[in-house]
């Protein structure tokens, strides 16, 4: 919670002014009963006449008007502070989310990050707005009314103190009990949502397995549990109004009783009793408003906690601030007895991976489903940290690079062909911000995507969100072009030509071999013909290296590779 408050830092002025004007408004309201008392005592009681009453009423009008002005001013400052706060918070949250490493991204999941970024931040914005406007006004009115009561009569005012102490206990107690209950309600709602979503996404399978009745049962259970929790939380909140009502009215009874005694002793006037009574009523009105808003407030607190949880997730990856010098030899990449265990996984995803890659070589990586191909190449740009051994790029451990320096050395084409909303040019420039049209053109030609770019209207051709206006194969080739624009010394293709036909794939590989800057290339593939010509082929099975060598070597000494090759060779023959 405290973590989030620092985003109000730049709005100190507003945070002070908003409640201040709110208090100003409240103090004008507090004067009202005094004026009414004057009307009764002086205007009516002492017979000061109609002129006095009219004047007093004009004061009431003036108070209302000044109250309006201060209230509007307060609303402005509090809105400014709350909106500014939310803006800064979103900025910080987005920055924080971007700083997280792959391990944390895997763990948190996208959809919850998005809801926290949007609806939870909005909830706290409402919360801040409310606190600035009301949670200072209400105590001010309450305590102000009490102080005013003291100025009228100390004995009668004691009832105010008693009432306020009791009220604090009641409001505090109910809030304390109901916040955890509300969190539980929110959790139950999540479960109901999950079942509903699952039944839509999996509708065919569920119907094929005739699970309708079971699912109805499951939903009914979750739904009933939600209702039960809502009722429980509701019953506690339902106490708020009746309890405050009792306390205030009992205080009024006490007040009038002592008031009667004081009037009898001539210490108080009748008008003053009315004024005291009015103050007490003001407290009541204020508290009822407060009670209704506490529910909103509690929701904001729950959201604030959810956001704070995200901030608490520290990136597990520390980057060096300044780079150590490296001695670029002719070895581009080296894995030294590398092991990788994912967070929360039972077993190692990679075990004892050890190999060396010379500058300019092409490396093929092949293996079955879940054999660790992607895991292996993800270690080179340090998307994950090796849990055992070390990964070296240009003779230097990847942990000793600055983030920027390592990122410059490596261009990755991810497995999932993702493009972003914008133009072809804006997407290609992800690789290199200041790429010239010629450089982009070269990359486009090499990636075998020139025909697509032409058909889309050249570099300025539009790309929809997630590249939806392009086919899978077109997207893949554009992501390859994006990586080529970067002209990084190491190029990694993670099964990124799967949607291309054999002929295009072959042309692409030829173009990559002929790149002027001669990068070291890693090609991950399920197809043997995509990696047959590589200088070295790494065969993975169950996270371990089954064999390293050229195509011919592996065919003669690696059973797994031979099996893969034959399974596809036959396939091609039959096809």
């Amino acid at each position: 919670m405290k973590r989030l408050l620092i985003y109000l830092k730049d709005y100190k002025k507003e945070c002070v002014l908003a409640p201040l004007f709110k208090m100003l408004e409240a103090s004008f309201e507090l004067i009202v009963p005094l004026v009414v008392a004057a009307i009764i005592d002086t205007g009516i009681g002492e017979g000061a006449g109609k002129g006095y009453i009219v004047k007093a009423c004009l004061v009431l009008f003036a108070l209302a008007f000044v109250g309006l002005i201060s209230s509007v001013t307060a609303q402005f400052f509090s809105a400014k502070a709350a909106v500014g706060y939310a803006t800064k918070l979103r900025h910080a949250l987005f920055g924080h989310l971007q700083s997280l490493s792959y391990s944390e991204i895997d763990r948190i999941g996208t959809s919850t990050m998005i809801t926290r970024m949007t609806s939870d931040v909005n909830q706290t914005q409402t919360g801040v707005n409310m606190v600035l406007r009301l949670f200072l006004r209400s105590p001010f009115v309450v305590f102000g009314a009490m102080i005013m009561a003291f100025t009228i009569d100390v004995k009668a005012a004691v009832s105010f103190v008693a009432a306020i102490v009791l009220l604090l206990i009641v409001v505090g107690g109910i809030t304390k009990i109901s916040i955890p209950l509300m969190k539980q309600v929110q959790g139950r709602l999540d479960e109901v949502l999950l079942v509903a979503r699952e039944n839509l996404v999996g509708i065919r399978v569920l119907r094929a397995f005739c699970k309708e009745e079971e699912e109805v049962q499951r939903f009914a259970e979750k739904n009933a549990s939600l209702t039960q929790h809502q009722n429980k939380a509701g019953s506690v909140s339902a106490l708020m109004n009746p309890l405050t009502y009792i306390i205030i009215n009992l205080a009024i009874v006490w007040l009038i009783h002592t008031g009667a005694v004081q009037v009898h002793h001539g210490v108080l006037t009748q008008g003053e009793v009315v004024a005291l009574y009015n103050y007490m009523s003001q407290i009541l009105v204020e508290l009822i408003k407060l009670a209704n808003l506490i529910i909103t407030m509690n929701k904001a607190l729950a959201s604030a906690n959810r956001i704070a949880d995200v901030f608490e997730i520290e990136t597990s990856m520390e980057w060096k601030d300044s780079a150590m010098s490296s001695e670029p030899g002719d070895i581009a990449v080296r894995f030294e007895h590398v092991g990788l265990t994912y967070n929360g996984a039972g077993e190692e995803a990679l075990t004892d991976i050890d190999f060396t890659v010379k500058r300019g070589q092409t490396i093929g990586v092949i293996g079955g489903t879940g054999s660790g191909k992607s895991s292996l190449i993800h270690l080179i740009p340090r998307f994950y940290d090796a849990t055992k051994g070390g990964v070296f790029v240009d003779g230097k451990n990847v942990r000793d690079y600055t983030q920027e320096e390592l990122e410059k050395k490596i261009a990755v084409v991810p497995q999932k062909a993702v493009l972003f909303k914008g133009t072809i040019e804006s997407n290609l420039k992800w690789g290199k911000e200041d790429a010239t049209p010629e450089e982009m053109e070269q990359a486009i030609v090499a990636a075998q995507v020139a025909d697509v770019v032409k058909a889309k209207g050249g570099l300025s051709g539009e790309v929809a969100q997630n590249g939806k206006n392009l086919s899978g194969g077109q997207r893949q080739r554009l992501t390859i072009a994006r990586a080529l624009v970067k002209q990084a010394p190491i190029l990694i293709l993670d099964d990124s030509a799967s949607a291309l036909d054999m002929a295009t794939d072959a042309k692409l590989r030829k173009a990559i071999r002929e790149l002027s800057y001669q990068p070291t290339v890693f090609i991950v593939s399920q197809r043997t013909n995509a990696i047959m010509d590589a200088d070295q082929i790494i065969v993975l099975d169950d996270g371990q290296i089954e064999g390293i060598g050229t195509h011919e070597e592996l065919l003669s000494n690696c059973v797994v590779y031979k099996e893969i090759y034959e399974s596809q060779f036959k396939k091609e023959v039959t096809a």
Partner: protein
Amino acid sequence: MKQGKVLKKVFSYLKRYNWLMLLSVLFAAVIVALTLYVPILIGDAIDAIAEGAVNFELVMFYLKRVVAVVLATALLQWLMNVINNHVTYHVVRDIRKEAFDKLQILPLKYVDRHPYGEIVSRIITDVDTFADGLLMGFTQLFTGIVTILGTLVIMLTLNPMITLVVVVITPLSLFVANFIATHTYAMFKTQSETRGEQTAFVEEMIGNAKVVKAFGREDESMEVFDDINDRLQKCSLKAIFYSSLTNPCTRFVNSIVYACVALTGAFTVLSGNMTVGILSCFLNYANQYTKPFNEVSGVVTELQNAIACAGRIFELIEEQPQVPDEASAAELSDASGEIVCENVSFSYTPEQKLIEDFNVRVKPGQKVAIVGPTGCGKTTVINLLMRFYDVKSGEIKVDGNEIRHVTRKSLRQNYGMVLQETWLKSGTIRDNIKMGKPQATDEEMIEAAKAAYAHSFIKRLPKGYDTVIGEDGGMLSQGQKQLLCISRIMLSLPPMLILDEATSSIDTRTEMKIQSAFTRLMQGRTSFIVAHRLSTIRDADIILVMKDGNIIEQGNHQELLAAGGFYAQLYNS
């Protein structure tokens, strides 16, 4: 759906809680009456405190009454709140349950046509908003109106002239509130549009965070984010500030009313037509009378919103369900697998004709391959066989039974289906494999997993078969998910099979092994296979060739090649 009709439906749900509702209304009326009675008693008590002649006996008499009335009011208030909560949450539960029950019998046509997000938001968000509105309506609208009426009556009995002043001025606040609401509507619209833009951007960047990282584009995306964020700040500030003017403005109107009452009241007292006590309680009433106007204007917007949401839910609930099973529908058990399609015609929309007058006769144990270019409508055949959709005309018979004359449940239980798009339920691996046969023993389950080559990877998961997988498979790779789906079928061993590119995400070596397991499984079982692999297709007894949604050729490999049609073209390309 019209508002009136929606309200009618809402009341039909409330009816189940008739006596509770009645109690709530009764309590509300009593509470309002008692709340209004308290100021009168206090006014009387104050009148008994005339200076120099305090009537203690009378004061105590009134105060004792106040205590009794207050305690009764508070108790009733609490009971009313609890009842309102109870009714609201139970009505909402009923509606949600009905919506979900409906979901189970809705034709797939409906679900296929609506995005998941939309249906989920109807069942979850809309119902929730409706609940909020209903609760507010209960607690505030009714008591608000009763308070206004009650106060009016009392004020009229106390002094008609001053009441007139109050009645004339107060509606001003409704007018002001309405004025502000209509003028801020556009600002809120801009705000929600900008919010939508930001959400879309966040979704794109955070959803693809790994790519952003790989290219080191954090700073650039931050820039774009900040640009949207700044625009959002500006329009939010406008919307929030202008809308927040409602409260001060209506309060201002209230203060004016208060001052007017004080003025006219004081004059009336001077003229001897009213006591000071009555004036003080009149002022109190003026306050109580104007407050509900603020609340009511807020509640009305909230209620309109709630009714709009309820309308969306009822639309879903009243959607035409699928044709129920016939009362005389037979149970299909252990089908031999003879499937006959006679003059089958089908289309998703009347304008676009798909399958026309289709005939095929599949003998028990035969293998049927469905081939054709991407997007040719191969899933349509599956939809018809599983009766996810009903044929427009003609008949599909399994073992001589027209499938519309057997129960859906028994028909589907005779099929085993593995789809290209895998789907797993959140729960344990065990739950997922046993989905088709919950009574299976662990030995049988492991046997099935081994047959599907899933056992070795399951074994390596943190808790083996008890590993909980998240929504839609969570951390599992696409290939692993497919292996689990195949395990399900290997366990339930149904007499007929539908395999829609069941091995598309599995590596070639494992695929070969699974293929041999499938071959064993298919022996003696009628099977429908959607596949690209020509070796699978060549061995099929019947090949259905599809193009643009229609089945254009059928026969075996030799026949089709000899015919020299579309299939021959595909094969030779």
